[in-house]
């Protein structure tokens, strides 16, 4: 007896899926677990007296905390505020998605809006509307992307190779960090050199302790910083060991050194730090963003960031991440829009998370994407990593959306990696820092990740790093070392990046370098006003996005068939005996083959030789004492009609129809074309024994028996995605040979039995 169970087995199946590793949290505003609104969130409001904000979102001036005070003094424009705050939030929400309302009008209004007002407006938009509004409101027209370049050993050879690879994929910024903090200087030099291979203009950041990071920037190795974090509650801020004033001071300090900078904030940070004041994630984030505009930073790394995984556990959390990004761009800040920390184990949730950003575009879609393997990511795995980077390239192609990356041919990748490794080794030798061996270099060039390398250890790196720091080595020394060792192009590239800081052009909002020129919200402003405006993928760019590897075309299909042609010639010969006659004997079974079968096409989609397939069926029919005839049809290439026509010619009334790609049918003389006896439609998984069984069943029907139908088991393979491109190209070869009214031809088949 089958025992009863205490659960539906489907739930047990679901338990095994990666999704169930994700934990989900209940909505609980009192404990800070609410995405869009909490009873503790204030109502929007403002009072202005004599040009001074005397009340902000229900808090009177003398009760302001530091954040209120900073926002009131530095963000709110008292000239705009009365008008902006008086607007109905639903009306403003509609304007955000109205292509006829220009971005500038909405940006101006945001200058007069309080955090609660901004949050109230964007809360009214659903996920699709947020994505659309984001696309319209982001500051720079052309989208871009950022990569993480790190590894588990802080190996500078690998950093250089991976930086060069990331640059070649088209990342506009690369960001590194270390496993061992004292290795910062080595990481900085390695990525700066690697990032100068192939082209110039990729901005580079070395995320480290604040003072150290600024020193590395002053030595000229890095060109931007983004780890200046801000928080939405006063307690979180001071627990983070800063204040709005200390961070704003740091922002001015970066500007004074000609280094691009953005702040970082994201939902969930206050919740993680334990000082959320029971406010919603979006409201706290609106405070962070108003603060950042007030500080005068050009941009923000925003969208959960380290808090994204926590935010994604909360109902509506992923929509909230999109909403906070929308507030950022509405406030006219450059947005490096998160999509970095891996917020789920489910690949479906990963794809769903990235899609709105890919199709809406963003200044930096990921901040950043793991260009390296997950285990090599010293920040923690990213939403999309080296493992999945090709999936992202295909998403770009699927949606004809510019995600900032361009497919990279394997040979070019190897060439660049070799060059980068040689360049950093030369710099180290020239500066007396290290002498990497040939084996070290070779192991890195071909390595997918640091598990594959036999290179410098974190301890070796510490000596290099400390020497760079102590000896006061600067980018000028590295430029000279490169040039002295014949890496003149790389030396020029590196010098060009440092020269950016002289004009400060790249300090403006949303600046990046494309083709050696500055592209920012100043000279490339988002001008979206409906279809045909804003960023459009040009035909040239579309062709780049399309150019992924291993793309099938008719030439490729014919090439592979030509290879099989010679092979099949050793196994089978077909001789045309003239027009096929109607059979009359009861033991006559006909196998109808398609026009190109064995003439232009030689293998089934499962890879079986047509000679073997035909041989298996003939054997099985003859084994039952029947006679099998092979007839080629040229009036049709359709399986059903091949089968039916064969059956009509057969004395037994039973025929088999088979196409060159392996799709087969057993048919009977008097049936409707599509009402066959047995169909073998999944050719890619149909094995030789199935064709043998098919022959046996056809024989059984001819003998008047009722055999057990053959079931070709499938396990849910996405047959269409795997085979349909090839099938369509192959089938076109078949249909190309058809001729209306062409008579069936009797074919003599000689199986020569040669072994391959």
């Amino acid at each position: 007896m089958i025992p009863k169970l205490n659960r539906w087995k489907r739930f047990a199946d679901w338990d095994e899926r990666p999704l169930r590793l994700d934990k989900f949290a209940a909505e609980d505003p009192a404990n800070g677990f609410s995405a869009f609104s909490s009873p503790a969130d204030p109502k929007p409001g403002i009072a202005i007296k004599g040009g001074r904000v005397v009340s902000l979102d229900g808090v009177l001036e003398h009760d302001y905390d530091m954040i209120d005070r900073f926002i009131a003094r530095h963000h709110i424009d008292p000239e705009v505020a009365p008008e902006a705050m008086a607007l109905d939030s639903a009306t403003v929400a509609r304007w955000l998605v109205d292509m006829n309302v220009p971005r500038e009008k909405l940006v101006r209004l945001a200058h007069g809006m309080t955090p609660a007002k901004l949050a109230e407006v964007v809360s009214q938009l659903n996920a699709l509307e947020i994505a659309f509004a984001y696309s319209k409101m982001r500051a720079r027209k052309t989208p871009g992307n950022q990569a993480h370049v790190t590894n588990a050993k802080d190996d500078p050879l690998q950093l250089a190779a991976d930086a060069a690879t990331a640059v070649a994929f088209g990342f506009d910024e690369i960001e590194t960090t270390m496993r061992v903090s004292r290795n910062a200087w080595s990481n900085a030099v390695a990525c700066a050199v690697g990032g100068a291979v192939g082209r110039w203009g990729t901005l580079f950041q070395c995320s480290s302790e604040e003072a150290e990071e600024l020193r590395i920037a002053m030595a000229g190795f890095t060109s931007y910083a983004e780890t200046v974090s801000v928080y939405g509650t006063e307690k979180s801020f001071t627990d983070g060991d800063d204040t709005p004033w200390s961070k704003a001071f740091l922002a001015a300090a970066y500007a004074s050194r000609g280094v691009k900078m953005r702040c970082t904030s994201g939902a969930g940070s206050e919740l993680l730090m334990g000082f959320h004041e029971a406010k919603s994630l979006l409201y706290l984030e609106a405070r962070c963003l108003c603060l950042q505009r007030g500080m005068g930073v050009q941009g923000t790394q925003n969208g959960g960031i380290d808090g994204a995984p926590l935010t994604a556990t909360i109902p509506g959390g992923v929509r909230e991440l999109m909403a906070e990004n929308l507030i950022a761009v509405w406030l006219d800040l450059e947005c490096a829009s998160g999509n970095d920390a891996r917020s789920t184990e489910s690949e479906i949730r990963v794809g769903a998370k990235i899609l709105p950003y890919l199709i809406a575009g963003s200044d930096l879609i990921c901040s950043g994407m793991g260009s390296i393997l997950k285990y090599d990511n010293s920040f923690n795995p990213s939403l999309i990593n080296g493992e999945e980077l090709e999936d992202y390239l295909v998403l770009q192609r699927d949606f004809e959306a510019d995600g900032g990356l361009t497919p990279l041919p394997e040979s070019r990748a190897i060439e660049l990696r070799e060059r980068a490794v040689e360049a950093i080794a030369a710099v180290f030798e020239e500066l007396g820092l290290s002498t990497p061996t040939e084996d070290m270099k070779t192991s890195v060039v071909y390595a997918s990740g640091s598990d594959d390398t036999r290179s410098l250890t974190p301890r070796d790196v510490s000596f290099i790093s400390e020497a760079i720091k102590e000896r006061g080595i600067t980018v000028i020394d590295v430029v000279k070392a490169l040039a002295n060792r014949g890496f003149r192009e790389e030396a020029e590239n590196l010098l060009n990046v440092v020269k950016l800081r002289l004009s400060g052009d790249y300090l403006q909002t949303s600046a990046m370098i494309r083709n050696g020129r500055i592209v920012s919200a100043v000279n490339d402003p988002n001008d979206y006003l409906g279809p045909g405006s804003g960023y459009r993928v040009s035909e040239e760019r579309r062709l780049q996005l399309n150019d992924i590897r291993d793309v099938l075309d008719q030439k490729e299909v014919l090439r592979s068939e030509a290879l099989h042609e010679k092979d099949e010639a050793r196994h089978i010969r077909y001789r045309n005996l003239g027009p096929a006659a109607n059979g009359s004997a009861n033991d006559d079974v006909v196998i109808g083959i398609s026009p190109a079968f064995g003439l232009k096409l030689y293998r089934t989609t499962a890879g079986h030789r047509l000679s073997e397939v035909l041989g298996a069926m003939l054997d099985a029919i003859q084994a039952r004492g029947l006679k099998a005839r092979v007839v080629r049809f040229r009036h049709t290439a359709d399986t059903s009609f091949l089968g039916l026509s064969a059956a009509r010619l057969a004395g037994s009334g039973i025929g088999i129809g088979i196409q060159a790609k392996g799709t087969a049918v057993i048919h009977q003389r008097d049936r409707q074309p599509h009402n066959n006896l047995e169909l073998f439609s999944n050719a890619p998984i149909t094995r030789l024994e199935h064709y043998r069984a098919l022959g046996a069943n056809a024989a059984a029907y001819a003998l008047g028996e009722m055999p057990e139908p053959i079931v070709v088991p499938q396990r849910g393979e996405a047959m269409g995605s795997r085979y349909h491109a090839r099938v369509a190209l192959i089938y076109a070869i078949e249909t190309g040979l058809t001729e209306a009214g062409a008579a069936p031809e009797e074919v003599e088949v000689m199986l020569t039995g040669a072994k391959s």
Partner: protein
Amino acid sequence: MIRTRADYPLAETQPGAVTGKRGKSLPEITLDSVLAGDVTMEDLRITPQALQAQADVARDVERPTLALNFERGAELVEVPQDFIMQVYELLRPGRAKSKEELLEAAATMRDTYQAERIARFIEEAAETYAARGLFTFRF
């Protein structure tokens, strides 16, 4: 001269006018001049003039807060790195034990480096920290 968006990017519209701290202009900073030993890190440092020009551009494209940050930055160009880091440290919570320490730093910024905006900014912080009790001892 007040710059506008039409002047942007300055490195492309007037490269000869973009200079480093020692007066060397962009076209003069080449790989060959680096190799000849004619270029130092000082030649690769932004000037207060360049930051002011970027502030003008930012204001022209309706980004007044960004412009103010560039102007605060312009005032810090001549301030030594160590003093910048010292003031940054002092602005962090609980570092200054009293309002006076911050006011003193503000005075140095104003008197020694003519950093008026920065001085006022530090004074505003001092006032805020006093109001919010941030001069408490942190272990």
